[in-house]
């Protein structure tokens, strides 16, 4: 066991979790200590060194702090806010839609739902940091929508990091259970105060979408660049279930996000779009794994990245068609723009197919902005800097406008100049840019 693995176990012991979570915590701790620490030879971590975790001494758990200057994605929408992993009642909405509750406040029925699903959707043998999340679970958010019901409004779950005296850790856990024919839209927003950070956030979201249910999900990771974040979204899709997902991440010292979607019921549909925008010396690593276990599933996955300065992006998109998953349609596209001579991208779209009557395709490209397009814009009197920004914006806007929540779209467009590290020229072009 490495120092960090030891430290993580000690941190788990410092927590006080309710009795009904103890089994999960023990199993998680066991799995965490039994799993060998990933190295460069571990395929899933080949391009993403975990050295930043090893090098930091995490003294303890994050503490509640004030973080009122965060710009909310939608100030009106009901939200649950956690600061450094601690629930912040002052920042959260007093009224939440029915079915949304913190683990700490869960009633007996809700506890039963949590116990039934929590830790069951994610494969913690495959995902080391999911095992850690199990070991660390103390509080979390449950979104439970009963059969045929619709979540009254979009729920925002916000996780804010603030700098602390010494490096600290935070765990963020979300469980979303949609019963048959239910529907819900959830926004996960990870943010930090502008000051430099020193924490580590381990986040895990598990989603059960039952037959004919519809799930819309947005997840934006916009923390400061010196924060370490390892997170995962793990989804089971039931028969004819639908999921529309959108994710956007800026880089940080170490930012790794896993998406795993299991087509468990026939005829499920998945649309997953993602954008990553690392710059400076940041790293973003997206690993997606779509398992088609049954016939007639559909997957459409598109990830795009703009990598600047000395940043690095890693993308690994796996589509696995099991032997019986006939009539599957699956497509994956990954396009990357390198905007600097020191930037790097490592991408690996994977197809693993064991059924013959399927149509699967993937594509990946890496290049810089198209010189012809730049020339065209410049010949129309637009400066090179502006032309670059316009084309970069166009490159990701195709995905942005597919984001399931309008509030997420407009929020990200407002902040796009900041996201691309080019505030002034971009702002002019974005005024009035609604789609």
């Amino acid at each position: 066991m490495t120092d960090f693995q030891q430290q993580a176990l000690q941190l788990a012991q410092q927590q006080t979790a309710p009795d009904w979570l103890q089994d999960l915590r023990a199993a998680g701790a066991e799995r965490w200590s039994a799993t060998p620490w990933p190295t460069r030879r571990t395929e899933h971590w080949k391009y993403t060194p975990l050295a930043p975790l090893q090098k930091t001494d995490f003294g303890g758990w994050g503490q509640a702090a004030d973080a009122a200057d965060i710009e909310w994605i939608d100030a009106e929408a009901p939200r649950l806010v956690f600061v450094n992993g601690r629930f912040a009642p002052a920042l959260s909405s007093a009224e939440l839609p029915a079915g949304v509750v913190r683990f700490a406040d869960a009633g007996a029925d809700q506890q039963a739902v949590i116990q039934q699903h929590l830790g069951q959707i994610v494969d913690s043998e495959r995902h080391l940091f999911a095992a850690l999340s199990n070991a660390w679970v103390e509080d979390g958010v449950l979104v439970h929508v009963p059969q045929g019901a619709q979540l009254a409004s979009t729920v925002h779950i916000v996780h804010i990091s603030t700098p602390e005296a010494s490096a600290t850790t935070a765990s963020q856990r979300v469980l979303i259970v949609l019963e048959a024919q239910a529907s819900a839209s959830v926004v996960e927003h990870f943010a930090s105060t502008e000051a430099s950070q020193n924490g580590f956030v381990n986040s895990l979201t598990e989603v059960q979408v039952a037959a004919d249910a519809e799930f819309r999900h947005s997840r934006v990771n916009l923390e400061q660049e010196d924060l370490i974040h390892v997170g995962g979204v793990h989804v089971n899709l039931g028969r004819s279930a639908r999921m529309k997902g959108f994710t956007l991440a800026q880089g940080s010292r170490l930012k790794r996000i896993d998406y795993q979607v299991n087509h468990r019921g026939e005829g499920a549909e998945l649309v997953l779009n993602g954008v990553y925008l690392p710059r400076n010396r940041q790293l973003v690593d997206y690993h997606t794994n779509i398992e088609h276990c049954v016939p007639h599933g559909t997957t459409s996955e598109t990830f795009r990245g703009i990598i600047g300065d000395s940043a690095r992006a890693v993308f690994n998109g796996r589509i696995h068609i099991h032997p019986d998953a006939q009539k599957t349609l699956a497509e994956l596209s990954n396009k990357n723009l390198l905007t600097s001579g020191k930037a790097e991208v490592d991408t690996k779209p994977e197809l693993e197919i064991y059924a013959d009557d399927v149509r699967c395709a993937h594509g990946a490209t890496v290049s810089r902005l198209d010189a012809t397009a730049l020339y065209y814009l410049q010949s129309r009197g637009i400066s090179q800097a502006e032309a670059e920004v316009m084309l970069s914006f166009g490159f990701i806007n195709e995905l942005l406008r597919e984001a399931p929540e309008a509030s997420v779209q407009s929020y990200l467009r407002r902040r796009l100049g900041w996201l691309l590290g080019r505030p002034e020229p971009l702002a002019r072009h974005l005024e009035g840019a609604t789609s």
Partner: protein
Amino acid sequence: MSEQVESLIRSRKEYAAGFHTSIDSHTLPPGLDEDVVRFISLKKGEPEWMTEWRLKAYRAWLEMKEPNWAKVKYPPVDFQKISYYSAPKSMDDKPQSLDEVDPELLATYEKLGIPLHEQEMLAGVAVDAVFDSVSVVTTFRKKLWEAGVIFCPISEAVHEYPELVQKYLGSVVPQKDNFFAALNSAVFSDGSFVYIPKGVRCPMELSTYFRINEMNTGQFERTLIVAEEGSHVSYLEGCTAPMRDENQLHAAVVELVALDNAEIKYSTVQNWYPGDAEGKGGIYNFVTKRGICHTNAKISWTQVETGSAVTWKYPSCILKGDNSVGEFYSVALTNNYQQADTGTKMIHLGKNTRSTIIAKGISAGHSDSSYRGLVRMNPGAEGARNFTQCDSLLIGDKCGAHTFPYIESRNPSAIVEHEATTSKVSDDQLFLCQQRGLDAEKAVSMIVNGFCREVFRELPMEFAVEAGKLLEVSLEGSVG
């Protein structure tokens, strides 16, 4: 259509090259230690530096672990149960001309359709025939010599051209490169050596034909091709083995050096015994092939892989010089219980380097075929370009087709494009062909041939015909 499939599976043709030649051989008892390495070196009468080179590789190999990242499954190979040297007795006193070669050996090659008589049909091809651990005969040496081209067994080159061998052997695939390359470096017994002098265009196609014959032996051949500035050569390689129930190991190393403005075209038609319909027997084909391109040079790999029980093979190009070009065209066909994990690596170091990868995988029966490739754009690869296309065709619902492309780009002016598709032979296409009076098998054969056309047209003419036929035979009985 499933009835048709079954009847076709039953009528599957036998592996035509699966016979065994009864011939007296000197075969080293199974096992591997430093003495075996020294014995092979002694048997070849090698100079001291060569023996040391082998021992260095052997010691490195002892420290290495067998790679397990490939998507293939096979029981562990017991390297102590393999015999590392086997040569027909009749080769002891080095026959000087074709007339002195054991007629049994010649008959073997005749049966395989390999022209060892220079006046024969494929007279435009010079052949080096390697039988188990030794080279039997190399044709057209005189004619090639006149052009200044050296084409001889590598064991001979060690004596005749030691300075060339010393300079280039291991320069592209070092002894410690990987587990199987290290093993090969320690025990390689024969193979071909080709040297094309400056500005020479090799007057004919060169080819090596590998044959495994003895039981329990492994074949470890080593090929080294050096193309001097501005030269050009086209080289082909073919291979077969008898049908046996046990698995045999083939661990080869091929090194290509293309100096400034040179061009090497390397084609392989690999037809090792693939094992029977139950997956019993067959060759483990663990091969390291790599070429280095200097300024303006070009290396083109073309492979048609239809044989072997397990294939682990990644012909690669290091595009070191500016404007150099790497190409990889591959058809990998697996049937029954065959497994193939094959692809390429294109390492772009120089400016304006270009690479093209066209990989076609066809899986049938219970087989698994994977494309695994790496395209790396280093910071110096200004203006480099790569295009990759991987298509997989599935025939039957028990097989698998996988694609694992690694793309690493560190230069914004480099453009990398990768696309991959997987589908089956569509019912519509089959229906259309059958409606026009073609039977199912012929129709699939046509569709598959069309699917592979981009690769076949890269092969030298004689091989393209052979490859087409090979594909038909290998696919027989798998149509659905």
